[in-house]
């Protein structure tokens, strides 16, 4: 019986679809939000209540990483993104974004770096604290990526109640931030010589950005939760204004008009917008060979449509396809492993990490 029980449980953890098998590799996670591969069989992942953990995908063992910064966990806030330094193999550095209390008992977005040594964070340092205090942690953004020049970009959401501030440059609401990995400000940042602007700002006029990546050709792609009917996929360029909330394709959750305008000179149009909203939550640009059908396409997880949108740019046309909807979960995060396997994290307390296995 002892021999058969694991096999029995394993059978129940594998879903079958017409083209792919879904294997649940981690289950019952405590609101895990993001993950990154340390090796093919080992992932580092965050849980929103403020836990950073390492999981072995071989034996499913999970180890708590200690010395984690204190976070403010509620609503959409907590320990959010974790990424590895591009030179992680030599310097063991990681970066974490999270919401935490400020001195005046409000909440804002923080970015910390630390070295991961034997399941413990050492030499922790806060390298960025957003000028974006709010009473509750809504619309935090909190996505991190690296540019080719070694600088780091971070999304800082509009805080919902502070949406109009996304159009002002004296704060970090609704902005993409660019800093060096030690927290200093790159001297070629677009607003560095503007006395009325915060020097970390790279682009502005954003809402709640939940997807951020840099492709090998150096382009920055970002997607953001719009209001009802206004989720967007954008190409980010320095100093540009992406319009929120002066222009939008959506309306407020309350039904109120946010803006009757969808375009204006000096404000960027999205590459693509979703109406009705899909609530895009993360994305990768798949460049490996394991799934030839996904090669050189964007894979975007979605919370509301409960699927992965494959987005293809071809001959000035954008095509979309819904994938993995048979999973039926709100999907929070997506990564490809070093060997090219796609892993998807579902959303919310008790969530799962699922491996997508091609049948062929």
């Amino acid at each position: 019986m002892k021999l058969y029980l694991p096999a029995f449980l394993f059978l129940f953890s594998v879903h079958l679809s017409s083209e792919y098998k879904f294997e649940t590799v981690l289950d019952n996670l405590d609101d895990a939000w993001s993950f990154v591969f340390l090796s093919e069989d080992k992932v580092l992942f965050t849980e929103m209540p403020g836990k950073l953990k390492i999981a072995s995908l071989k034996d499913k063992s999970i180890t708590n990483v200690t010395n984690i910064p204190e976070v403010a966990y509620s609503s959409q806030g907590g320990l959010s993104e974790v990424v590895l330094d591009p030179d992680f193999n030599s310097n063991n550095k990681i970066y974490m974004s999270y919401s935490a209390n400020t001195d005046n008992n409000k909440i804002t977005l923080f970015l910390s770096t630390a070295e991961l040594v034997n399941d413990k964070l050492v030499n922790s340092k806060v390298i960025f604290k957003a000028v974006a205090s709010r009473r509750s942690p809504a619309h935090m953004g909190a996505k991190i990526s690296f540019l080719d020049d070694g600088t780091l970009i971070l999304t800082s959401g509009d805080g919902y109640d502070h949406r109009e501030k996304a159009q002002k440059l004296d704060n970090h609401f609704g902005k993409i931030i660019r800093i060096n990995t030690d927290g200093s400000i790159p001297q070629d940042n677009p607003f560095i010589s503007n006395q009325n602007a915060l020097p970390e700002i790279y682009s502005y006029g954003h809402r709640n950005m939940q997807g951020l990546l840099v492709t090998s050709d150096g382009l920055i792609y970002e997607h953001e939760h719009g209001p009802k009917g206004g989720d967007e996929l954008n190409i980010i360029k320095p100093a540009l204004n992406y319009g929120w909330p002066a222009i939008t394709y959506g309306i407020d959750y309350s039904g109120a008009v946010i803006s009757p305008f969808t375009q204006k000179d000096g404000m960027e149009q999205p590459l693509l917008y979703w109406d009705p909203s899909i609530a895009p939550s993360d994305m990768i640009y798949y460049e490996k060979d394991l799934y030839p059908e996904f090669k050189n396409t964007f894979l975007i997880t979605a919370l509301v449509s409960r699927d992965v949108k494959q987005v293809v740019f071809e001959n000035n046309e954008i095509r979309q396809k819904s994938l993995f909807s048979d999973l039926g979960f709100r999907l929070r995060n997506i990564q490809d492993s070093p060997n090219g396997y796609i892993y998807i994290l579902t959303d919310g307390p008790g969530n799962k990490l699922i491996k997508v296995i091609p049948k062929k």
Partner: protein
Amino acid sequence: MKIAKYPFAVFSAALFTVMLITPISSISNLLWLNSVDMPVGIISSLEVLLFDFQRLGILLYGVVIIGFAIAFSFTAVLINFTNISSKYLYALAGAVSIGAAMYLMVELLFESELLGGNRTFVGKVLHWIAGFFGGYFYYSLISKNKNYTFIVRFFGILYAYLILGFVLNWVFTPESAAADYGFVLKDLNDNAQNALIRDFTSFFISTFIFTILGVITLNPTWFLAAGIIYYGAAVFNLYAIFIHGTNYNQIYIGEIILGSWPTIIAFAILYFKKNE
């Protein structure tokens, strides 16, 4: 009728208050848009004001009804223990209930300020004032005897309020309105776009105007005319399904409801007039 007037006075006062509240958010939003050099004009202002009144208003309507029902019931008891004039007590109760509702919506439900107009102190005060006038309006409704026309008019206005949503969608955002019926507007040629927009807009505006005329004149013919149009839509929906083989479209249920509502009002007027 004596008892019925109280709940309908709450419903009417709540609708009146919503009409005062929604422009606070709309105007604060328009002022901000103007401050960032957006080309705010008469048409765009009307779009914001009317859409907010209809879409935001429907959400608020339920909240205000609950708030007023509690506040005015409490006030009805309190009146027996104080010498303060009833009209001021009800007005004050209206202001307090709106203030409490706005506060609780943030603290208990959304954790965020859903109403843009309620984010500033001035906006909050304006909401309280709207509640004050709502309470005063309630008092003016219950302080006089009412006959059947009060209830008939209320249902007529509520019907027009719902139809207004379709009207605004087709007038201001036809692309989105067309998408609700399965059309991708920009994929149609110019003539088809024109036909779609003019016919649908005319359809909804006509029934809206019929209803308003019915509310003003209490002539049942206007309500009946609106009812016939929606019954017709339901009948020919089924005709399209069963005779022309289109896909099953359950929107006919909504059409029957939208047809029955004014038809019942029309027959109610006829009944009451006969018994007067």
